[in-house]
């Protein structure tokens, strides 16, 4: 387990700001103790400082996971969020999309969200902004990228995609083995 390099921290935060904007600060400045980001085999984990210190006693080869996995760095040094980060992204989300009940399953099977499945969308969502997807009863289902801005959404044709799928909680079942 190692600290993220400056370069990588920047890449990580840039990605997180796409979803939760300035709320990234809240992830670092928490009233309930110190939390930090740690890197292990290119995966980034969000851990409390105490647990990170405890985990330091475990040899890195044997350590499978610590804290919450936020995502991973690709070989080209880009950051990819995993669905495991959802529980931290959802409460701070900047742009949100609510799905109609009928479209929920489609999304959970890994499909994009089409206009017809869109229940609500938060105002001022920009095009290609990171959005968190909820169902109508406000349960976070996953996240993606807005394919259209709020204004465009209204005029869009019902079959066109509104949000590109990135991760959804269905992955916990679908791709259980490569979640971490």
């Amino acid at each position, binding site marked *: 387990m*190692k*600290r993220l*390099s*400056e*370069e990588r*921290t*920047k890449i990580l*935060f*840039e990605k997180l*700001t796409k979803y939760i*904007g*300035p709320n*990234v*600060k809240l992830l*670092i*400045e928490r009233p309930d103790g*110190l939390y*930090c*980001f740690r890197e292990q085999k290119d995966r980034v984990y969000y851990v409390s*400082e105490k647990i990170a210190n405890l985990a330091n006693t475990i040899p890195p080869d044997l350590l499978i996971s610590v804290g919450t996995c936020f995502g991973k760095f690709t070989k080209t040094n880009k950051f990819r969020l995993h669905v495991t980060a959802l529980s931290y992204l959802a409460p701070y989300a*900047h*742009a*949100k999309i*609510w799905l*109609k009940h009928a479209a929920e399953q489609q999304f959970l099977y890994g499909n994009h969200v089409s206009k017809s499945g*869109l*229940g*609500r*969308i*938060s*105002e*001022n969502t*920009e*095009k290609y902004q990171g959005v968190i997807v909820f169902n109508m009863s406000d349960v976070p289902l996953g996240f993606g990228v807005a394919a259209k*801005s*709020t*204004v*465009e959404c*209204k*005029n869009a044709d019902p079959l066109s995609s509104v949000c590109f799928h990135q991760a959804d909680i269905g992955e916990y079942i679908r791709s259980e083995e490569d979640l971490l």
Partner: protein
Amino acid sequence: MVLLSEILEKTEREGSKLKSITVNKHLEVDLDLGTLLAVDPNVLDKKSLDENANDYLLNLTRDNVQILFNQVWELPTERVEEAIVAKLPPSKYVLPRSKPVPKPKPLTKWQQFAKEKGIEKKKKAKLTWDEQLKKWVPRYGFKKARAEMDKNWVLEVPANADPMEDQFEKRAVAKGERIAKNELQRLRNIAKAKNVKVPRFGIVNTDKSSSKDLQTAITVAKSSTASVGKFQEKLPHEKEARGIAKITPGASSRKRKLPPVSAEHEKSFNLAIVESVLSKRPKLDIDKVVSRQIHKAQPPSEEESSGRKSKKVAGRKGQRKGGVTKNDSSGRKSKKGASRKNQKKGGGGGRKRR
């Protein structure tokens, strides 16, 4: 009489001493007459071996030799100068080699590549017909240089070349380079075959460097300080060249662990990074600006007169109710109406609709 009886006695005694030429064995003894080899597969008698090993082994050997020679006597024999000689058949037994089997020669880099790609060596004729000289010229070696000289006694100066440049010298230099490169490759192959580590040195300058070469050169140059580049500053957007760990031993910072810092320090450090990320000036988003401009340009009268029909089109069930939820306080209330306006305009101003 006495003499005769003595002789009889003697022969009888000697006869009893001599053993029979027929030997019974439980398993048959393997014989190879070519090498006069007998291999006895029978089990040794443990008891008699323990009691008197010497006698037992001597007897056993005698028996086996007897069997061997019984067979030898059955071979065709001939008499050579008072001695009877048997003609031995060719041997069947394969002697194991004393030295290990030689290892195959390690392939050179080219041979390895050719093998992977399935490139086979073609036999080429030693001589080739030269149209210009009208004679047979060897591909290489004796008389090749002479033929080359005859052929290229004059050289054209390329249109874009420096006229004062000696084209012959240029050729000679190019050939020298090729020879040197080949020699380097040959030595490298030898080093590889003998598993010798050859120290590498920096980057070889070429006429035209690719961006990758330049990046490698930068990374190598940066790591060429006393502290192997630890304190070298990075330029914005600078990338580190990959796969150069061999040339820059000890400098691959990617593997290096960051020094430990206190949690508080790390937090402030992270916050500073967040600040810098957030304070970045956003790029000019043309789409956003255009949509905002359209939004502003809408005459307010039309907004008010948006009829029921248009509401049906844009404001679907869900949208009408909770429609748009606001999450920032920009206070643009007319947003909802604005989009509907577009819809309503129909043929008139609905440029965006298409």
